[in-house]
């Protein structure tokens, strides 16, 4: 199947129908393995059993940024090539990204209470993650206020691209400001500093969450394509010349 076929919305819908069962199976399998590893993983000598929160918190944190990056790339597709599937991808991604961001914030807060003694501090990483959530919500809001999806897509694309500036701030906030939050332990220049017995379940969980995202994203994109089709048809229906209307006059 050529890339051109993939880019055609109708073909895309057909493709999702074929791919989703496999993706769902893969997601479930990965989660099974990951959760098994999570259960086996030893307690941290400092953090005790609460380290198990990490296996949810960190994949969601990564995904919150990954989804935004995906949306930013789709936005380029919208603005530069005016490709309809790019709009759809960006729009379907926003609620998912917001959900992962929310889980990251919530689990982080829950982890913070036993570790730092408070649910919330106004620290650079925490706040920039909150700002990311706000940006997701703002994008969703903008999408809902502009009635015409094509116009909305382009407006949102501009904003998404401008907002990319927040990603490096989140990523490097721990290095730029001294904060309570953990510095990077997995993705660093000199290799991971995390114990292998915790690393592999973490990576599997991250992969599982990514697969989950891909599955949901494909399905949400399909819904969005159908929604647009419904809208177009409704407009066509509305514009059909009625008896004695201007067109027949």
């Amino acid at each position, binding site marked *: 199947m050529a890339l051109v076929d993939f880019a055609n919305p109708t073909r895309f819908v057909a493709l999702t129908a074929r791919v989703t069962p496999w993706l769902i199976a893969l997601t479930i399998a990965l989660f099974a393995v990951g959760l098994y590893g999570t259960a086996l993983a030893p307690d941290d000598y400092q953090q005790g059993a609460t380290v198990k929160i990490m296996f949810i918190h960190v994949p969601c944190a990564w995904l919150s940024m990954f989804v935004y990056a995906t949306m930013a790339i789709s936005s380029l597709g919208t603005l530069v090539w005016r490709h309809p599937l790019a709009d759809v991808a960006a729009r379907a991604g926003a609620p998912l990204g917001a959900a992962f961001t929310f889980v990251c914030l919530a689990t982080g807060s829950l982890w913070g209470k036993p570790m730092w003694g*408070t649910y*919330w*501090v*106004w*620290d650079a990483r925490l*706040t920039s993650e*909150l*700002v990311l959530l*706000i940006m997701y*919500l*703002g994008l969703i*809001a903008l999408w*809902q*206020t502009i009635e015409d999806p094509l116009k909305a897509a382009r407006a949102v694309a501009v904003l998404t691209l401008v907002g990319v500036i927040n990603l490096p701030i989140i990523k490097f906030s721990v290095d730029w400001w001294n904060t309570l939050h953990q510095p990077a332990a997995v993705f660093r220049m000199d290799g991971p500093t995390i114990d292998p017995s915790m690393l592999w379940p973490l990576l599997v969980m991250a992969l599982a969450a990514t697969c989950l995202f891909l599955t949901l994203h494909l399905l949400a994109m399909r819904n969005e394509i159908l929604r647009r089709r419904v809208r177009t048809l409704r407009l066509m229906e509305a514009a059909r010349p009625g008896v004695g209307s201007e067109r027949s006059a």
Partner: protein
Amino acid sequence: MKPLIALFAREWRLSIRVGGGALMGALFFLIVVTVIPFGVGPDLALLARIGPAILWIGALLSTLLTLDRLFQGDRDDGALDLLLMGDTALELVVFIKCLAHWSATGLPLVIVAPCLALFMNMDPQAILATVLTLLVGTPALTFLGSIGAALTVSLRRGGVLSAILILPLTIPVLIFGVSAASSLLSGPAGFMTPFLILCGLALFSLVVGSVASAQALRLAAE
């Protein structure tokens, strides 16, 4: 009654569809409250102390941001002329418009205020006091602000005048609101006096706002 219900429904629909409605107001409020710790720094005790003031300023700002188009849109598309020609007293029209505006933008704000107060580390009593004062105070802000909106519409160069007239009027509301909200710690007496004054101000502004705005709009029709 029917014209008023229809008007309320229309205003409500418009502010939901165009303004984004409740979600927007709340989100905006959230952002304002998020911005403050960035500036002031992450000192939780300090945040708790200035919490009520910040919530009130957020409420004032979001009222001002949404309010100036209260009558502007109707004037620009000619609907104001048609509203003036209805059988319904203009004062009532203004009242309903303000009410719809408040319930679409002010009320959600009052509802989310407690969550934001938690972010600011305020204690339960202070939260209750702040929400109470906001509930009474935001309608006052809306009705007073409507005078400015009406004046802006009527005097083509009136922006300046309306700002000068309106912002000072809102200052008493803001001051009594903030002092009631933040004085609960010093006992119920410290709360009741400013709170009662705030209630008085709110009632006063319901009446004055409707009447003055209607009068200003009549001049605007020229």
